């Protein structure tokens, strides 16, 4: 007879069963994602950090403690890269798994449940984020943008938290959509303003008072500020705790929302 099929004991063992699926998908698609994952962020570094940065004084008082513009925006670009990878992975692909290819329906006809399936997808997103952020971190290291090795490792690890804080709520949003048209707005009115105004390219102290408040509410600012504290070795423990707390709470709320929305969509 051979081994028997079983029900998973928790969402982690359930999600682990989907690893082979994601491995096969990634083996098939990695070339297509390599440019956006590895090359585009380096274009930003070159254009913004090196070329544009050549016109900007490396004044630590103006740049939140950074001694060069490159050192200022490197952590911002790292966090933004994590965010952008997430937006790409949990919008159209989630809709495809529900509506176009119906892959999730195939998965949940097995002992796997909705939380198992979501967790496995989030695991894949973290893998993608980890890989592209690792490449970014390693390439940036020789430019001297990391004050300490520990700070570089810390900044890299923070990206998993940034990724989760974006991934769970956006996954939830995508899981309830009937068609893909809102995604264009999500990118144009969500991701791009976050990218531009969350302190990645300039200190948010330059913004008007009300815009500063707005920026500080966005998850990307928390991610950027936390990353920057680590790369510049200027850790403010209490502020860091606020950042981590904010991102953890957002990721957790997003998780419950995602499970709720996908269950409502699929278990009818």
């Amino acid at each position, binding site marked *: 007879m*051979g081994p028997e099929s079983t029900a998973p004991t928790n969402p982690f063992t359930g999600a682990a069963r989907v690893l082979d699926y994601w491995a096969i998908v990634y083996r098939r698609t990695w070339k297509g994602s390599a440019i956006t994952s590895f090359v585009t962020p380096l274009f930003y570094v070159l254009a913004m950090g090196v070329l544009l940065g050549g016109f900007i004084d490396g004044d630590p008082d103006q740049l939140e403690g950074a001694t060069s513009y490159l050192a200022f925006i490197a952590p911002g670009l790292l966090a933004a890269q994590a965010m952008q990878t997430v937006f790409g992975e949990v919008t159209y692909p989630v809709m495809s798994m529900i509506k176009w290819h*119906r892959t999730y329906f195939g998965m949940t006809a097995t*002992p796997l449940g909705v939380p198992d399936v979501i967790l496995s997808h989030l695991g894949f997103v973290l893998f993608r984020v980890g890989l592209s952020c690792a490449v970014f971190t390693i390439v940036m290291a020789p430019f001297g943008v990391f004050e300490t090795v520990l700070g570089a490792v810390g900044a890299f690890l923070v990206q998993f938290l940034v990724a989760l804080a974006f991934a769970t709520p956006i996954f939830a949003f995508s899981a309830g959509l009937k068609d893909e048209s809102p995604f264009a707005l999500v990118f144009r009115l969500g991701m791009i303003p976050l990218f531009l105004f969350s302190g990645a390219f300039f200190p948010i102290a330059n913004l008007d008072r009300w815009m500063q408040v707005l920026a500080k509410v966005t998850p990307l600012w928390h991610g950027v500020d936390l990353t920057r504290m680590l790369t510049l070795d200027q850790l403010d423990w209490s502020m860091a705790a606020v950042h981590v707390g904010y991102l953890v709470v957002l990721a957790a709320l997003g998780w419950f929302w995602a499970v709720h929305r996908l269950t409502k969509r699929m278990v009818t």
Partner: protein
Amino acid sequence: MADTDSMILAQGLRKSFGEFEAVKGIDVDVRRGEAFGFLGPNGAGKSSTMRMIAAVSPVSSGTLRILGMDPATDGPEIRSRIGVCPQEDTLDTELTVRDNLFVYGRYFGLPRKEVRQRVDELLEFVQLTEKASAMVEDLSGGMKRRLTIARSLINRPEILLLDEPTTGLDPQARHVVWDRLFRLKQQGVTLVLTTHYMDEAEQLTDRLVVMDKGLIVAEGSPLTLIAEHSTREVAELRFGVAEEGNTHEALASKVEDLAERVEVLPDRLLLYTADGEETIAKVHERGLEPVATLVRRSTLEDVFLRLTGRTLVD
């Protein structure tokens, strides 16, 4: 003491979607090794019933036990022991045939080595060994359906659920699928299928229920249902285009005493009788001249027509 031979037991099973009630209280008992069918037209509640049995759709009311377990609390355990061949393919079209089966086997918690071995066996069983490395999007409809069946067998299920297994396939592809399902039945797999094809129900099922508008209107083996609700033979009469004063209804009234029952369809009359040839001879004796005549045995289609006044396929 649990009844270990009861694979599926439903009592007063209902399913509502808001105001709409798709399944309005049905009782079903499927036994081990049986090939059981739900026959009915589109919208009869067959797929809703199947999704509840597959433990992916919550029961609205009534009781349902699959392998003695309650889908509300033991969904994953139930799903680990059944196989599901859904109406709409959920194959991963961008993966190869082999990879589709392999990843699916992994979802059931089976070790890789075991899955690889089963994949080879199943490819052989559904005659897709040569297509193992092909992308699913390049397969024909019949091949995709066979692959879906293979996929639903990867966990060696005790019950195989097939929702409209041959809908959309050409006749030749249907016969290949039927042949494979018949082999499974002979191996002792409990088959539960829905269909709106009466020939499929007749060929594959030992026992079936006829569903209409969310209710079961008859139950039995194909032969007993035909014996109970129809005659041995049917004489089909086709007349030319209906004219004023010579409508199908008017023609029917001229022959209604020649048969146990007469049904008027848009394109023909059906005369239910024990001896079709004799009936047609009598029709000719009355001076009526149908354009074409046909004598055939009664089928489940006739049973359905009798019970609901409608045909299975619109």
